């Protein structure tokens, strides 16, 4: 019975591991298909596993499983009890309808309950297959490969992020492989093992897997050599349709989700648009106002308002514009059409080539007043324009106005969204901001001080090794005080937070910046703007002037045009950044992108990895110490192992049951003293050898008894107390 019991326990162990692997299958499926009731589906998996564990008769197992599925369907879809008439009727009608539908080949018309039913059947079959793989084939390899392939595919081609899932699956898979390998060996040898022996066999491998994984997590990893394959494949096959901008399929380029910033990103040279303009521009797309300590969101408290404009109509928004006389035109050709307008600073109008106009009846523009994102629309839907022109006139900011004391104080109610800060923002961020602006008097001076703070204080531009804030960490705090490494998001977000900390309304702006000149023929230069040019920067509200753009990111220059109408007392004030302008093109291009990690951060595993990443050095030290300690223990085992043997067996009386083990331990202990019994050496000759060196006869004595014990027929009375004495004597005996 014991062996039988062991069998169940063993299988149960396997199934627990399988359960966790299956969970990793389920999570992305449910996440991507937006299916709920994960717990109930997991429960079904559990039930299936338990049923196959106990090898329940198939009729009973079918009844249980079908009953569960029926219950699930009635409960979830109709909120009816399965035992009620209504519930049964619902099931029957569903069944009838779907069978008819299927047989008439109208596949698309089957109902959701039926799809759910099929999904359950699929899980059922999968579990049967796993059961077969484990109990008959004793290998999990195919399942594992399948799982990894599945997760990798989803990770690559969908929003699903499989980083942690992948680690978990490989870990669980390795553990499972160990279990099954040991199982295979046991079956091959035709023996049954007791629990503790089994654990002894399995534990070292599991420990090694654990250690290696922790080491793997702590060690630095290089970036993928092949970047995200989706844009690559798309650009290679010429299908740049720009959808990824809105839906966040891609991890690079312009994205809308900024709720979790941070992390490294990879370059992407996909061209987004060509701009014919007379000079390099900041192409504003939208602004965001709510900082969440992890990233940016648009505040939901302010009601979203939309303002409609016609083409060629002046657009009124918060950005000051220059005079009509100085207006210029920029022609945008979208290679990768987005559904929004690229706005140069000082934009006045959007114009469309009459040829393009013909395709649509009425084209207008909608602007979200909160984000100031402008969408073209026509035929009652948002359009993607391939070509349009923007008329813009950069405002000349009067230096005197910028430098002057505000005539009216900032209204905290009007600017509330732009002064928002998360409650969790560490005080030291505010303290630092106040420190930085100490010598500045006016809002503009303060903003300037913060803008130039980064370049002065040892911050570095970096795209590869950029940290992601951990669960309890603030994105800005981490950048300002811990890493001081980052790209535009780090700099711009930090500047907004610091501005707000000192009471200056500020918002975060996203868009594109610069681009490479590809053509200078004609009057205008043609700039090629790629995903690499996605950028983020800052707009601060300067009283009496309006929203002014700032560029805190190192290596980028701002393009405010300031009219120095008064003598400046501090000319280098505006020159600080001028010096850096030359580096714009040389430096790594600034990109704005989706962070590489997101969601899923609420479970233990992720917290654990976060913890490791946080205490990176500590874990490396711990790992190294374990390694060093292990090596030292291995080298010095001659000294401590005999003592350990004695210590461990001191209070254990020697008897028939453990004589063999004890004697083996004695041989081992003697081996550490330098008496290595060759495998072809008989115990007797070995005993003589030991005795002659140790100068005793005790080894021969105990060996003789042992020989009698293992080779002899009937067990004679053995004086085990004496044997124990000899045993301890020999183990403790030192070579004189």
């Amino acid at each position, binding site marked *: 019975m014991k062996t039988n019991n062991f069998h169940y326990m063993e299988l149960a162990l396997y199934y627990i591991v399988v359960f966790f692997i299956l969970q990793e299958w389920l999570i992305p499926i449910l996440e991507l298909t937006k299916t709920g009731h994960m717990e109930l589906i997991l429960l079904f998996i559990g039930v299936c596993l338990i049923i196959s564990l106990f090898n329940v008769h198939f009729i009973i197992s079918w009844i249980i499983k079908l009953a569960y599925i029926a219950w699930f369907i009635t409960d979830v879809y109709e909120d009816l009890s399965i035992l009620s008439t209504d519930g049964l009727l619902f099931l029957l009608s569903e069944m009838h309808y779907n069978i008819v539908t299927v047989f008439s080949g109208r596949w698309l018309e089957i109902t959701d309950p039926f799809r759910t039913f099929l999904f359950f059947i699929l899980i059922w079959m999968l579990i049967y297959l796993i059961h077969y793989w484990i109990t008959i084939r004793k290998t999990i390899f195919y399942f594992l490969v399948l799982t990894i392939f599945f997760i990798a595919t989803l990770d690559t081609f969908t929003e699903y992020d499989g980083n942690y899932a992948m680690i978990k699956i490989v870990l669980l898979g390795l553990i499972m492989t160990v279990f099954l390998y040991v199982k295979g060996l046991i079956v091959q040898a035709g023996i049954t093992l007791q629990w503790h022996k089994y654990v002894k066999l399995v534990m070292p491998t599991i420990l090694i897997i654990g250690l290696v994984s922790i080491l793997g997590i702590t060690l630095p990893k290089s970036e993928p050599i092949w970047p995200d394959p989706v844009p690559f494949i798309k650009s290679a096959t010429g299908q740049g349709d720009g959808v990824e901008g809105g839906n966040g399929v891609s991890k690079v380029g312009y994205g809308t989700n900024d709720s979790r910033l941070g992390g490294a990103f990879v370059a992407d040279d996909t061209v987004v648009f060509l701009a014919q303009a007379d000079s390099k521009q900041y192409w504003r797309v939208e602004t965001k106002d709510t900082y969440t300590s992890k990233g940016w969101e648009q505040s939901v408290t302010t009601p979203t308002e939309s303002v409609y404009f016609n083409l060629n109509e002046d657009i009124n928004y918060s950005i000051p514009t220059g005079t009509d006389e100085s207006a210029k035109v920029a022609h945008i050709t979208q290679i990768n059409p987005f559904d929004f307008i690229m706005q140069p600073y000082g934009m006045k109008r959007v114009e469309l080539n009459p040829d393009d106009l013909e395709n649509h009846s009425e084209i207008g523009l909608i602007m979200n007043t909160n984000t100031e994102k402008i969408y073209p629309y026509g035929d009652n839907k948002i359009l993607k324009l391939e070509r349009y022109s923007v008329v813009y006139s950069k405002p000349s900011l009067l230096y005197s106005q910028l430098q002057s004391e505000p005539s009216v104080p900032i209204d905290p109610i009007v600017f509330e969204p732009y002064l928002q800060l998360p409650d969790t923002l560490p005080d030291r961020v505010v303290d630092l901001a106040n420190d930085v602006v100490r010598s500045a008097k006016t809002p503009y001076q303060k903003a300037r001080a913060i803008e130039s703070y980064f370049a002065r204080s040892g911050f570095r531009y970096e795209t590869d090794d950029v940290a992601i804030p951990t669960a309890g960490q603030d994105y800005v705090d981490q950048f300002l005080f811990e890493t001081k490494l980052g790209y535009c998001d780090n700099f711009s977000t930090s500047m907004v937070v610091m501005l707000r900390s000192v009471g200056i309304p500020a918002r975060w702006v996203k868009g594109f910046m610069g681009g490479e000149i590809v053509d200078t023929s004609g009057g205008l230069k043609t700039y090629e703007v790629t995903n690499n040019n996605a950028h983020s920067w800052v707009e601060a509200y300067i009283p009496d002037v309006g929203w002014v753009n700032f560029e805190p990111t190192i290596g980028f220059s701002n393009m405010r045009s300031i009219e120095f109408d008064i003598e400046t007392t501090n000319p280098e004030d505006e020159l600080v950044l001028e010096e850096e302008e030359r580096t714009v093109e040389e430096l790594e291009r600034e990109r704005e992108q989706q962070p590489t990690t997101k969601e899923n951060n609420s479970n233990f595993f992720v917290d654990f990895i976060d913890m490791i990443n946080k205490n990176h050095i500590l874990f490396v030290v711990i790992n190294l110490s374990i390694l060093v300690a292990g090596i030292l223990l291995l080298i010095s085992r001659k000294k401590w192992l005999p003592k350990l043997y004695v210590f461990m067996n001191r209070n254990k009386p020697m008897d028939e049951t453990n004589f063999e083990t004890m004697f083996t331990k004695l041989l081992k202990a003697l081996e550490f003293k330098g008496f290595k019994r060759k495998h072809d050496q*008989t115990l*007797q000759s070995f005993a003589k050898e030991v005795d002659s060196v140790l100068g005793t006869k005790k080894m021969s004595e105990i060996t003789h008894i042992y020989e009698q014990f*293992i080779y*002899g027929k009937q067990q004679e009375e053995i004086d085990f107390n004496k044997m124990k004495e000899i045993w301890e004597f020999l183990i403790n005996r030192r070579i004189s």
Partner: protein
Amino acid sequence: MHQKIEEVISNIEKVMIGKREVAQLSVIAMLAGGHVLLEDVPGVGKTMMVRALAKSMGLEFKRIQFTPDLLPSDVIGVSIYNPKTLQFEFRPGPILGNIILADEINRTSPKTQSALLESMEEASISIDGQTIQIPKPFFVMATQNPIEYEGTYPLPEAQLDRFMLKIRMGYPTPQEEVEVLRRAENKQPITTLDSVISLDELLELQEEVKAVYVEDSIKAYIVQIARATRKVSEVYLGVSPRASIALMKASQAFAKMNNRDYVIPDDVQYLVPYVFAHRIILRPEARYDGITQEAILNRIINKAIVPIKRYAEK
């Protein structure tokens, strides 16, 4: 050492100088119910050895000198017509004795050789449809000159297999040889040798040997060695399962001799060369290279894993 056996061996030693090991091995074979092949050049005391053994045990000793013209009937006996009784009467040959010295066995024709060897294996002879049991104890000690000598019929492998042990006498050391000469000056000491063990004691001892316990791990050890001989590249033919049985039985006798009622790996290791060497046939290339069976067996023993735990139940 077992007292009785020790007595026999020291008795033999009175006449055989420096041949204690040969005496021991001979006694082992006898106790285990096997036969011995003594291989060596003439004049090193092979006959004396057998005679001393027979005398020490008070057993009947017969000697067959094998010559090329010896016939099977000269070995097993012949039926002769008795004119008085008007019947054929069986006149037993020398094989019907307790201890038989088959001298220079490789000098006779294969036909006669096989007559001897068959009766050795069966411990009985068949003549005129009649089977006659050879009385116990039955112990054949055959001597042969090394096969390179002229005028010999080498024993076929199948027949060599019937000898439990093959022992080489070897020359005595100078001191021993001086002692041999010194004793030869006087009358032959063999004539004064007394028996030290009775027939009943001997038969009882043989039964006791059969009862010596062989643990399964020891059996596995024997098999391990036997199987290894079949896998060596220089070996044309390894040992048979009969050889494994012989090794086990000899080990039992050796254990008994050492006053033990169980076999230990040391017993097996000691006996392997004596039991297995003559049953291994080397490939000609190996023979030319001067590789001996003993060297191969030595190598095998050095590789075989000595069991130090009870046999694991499977």
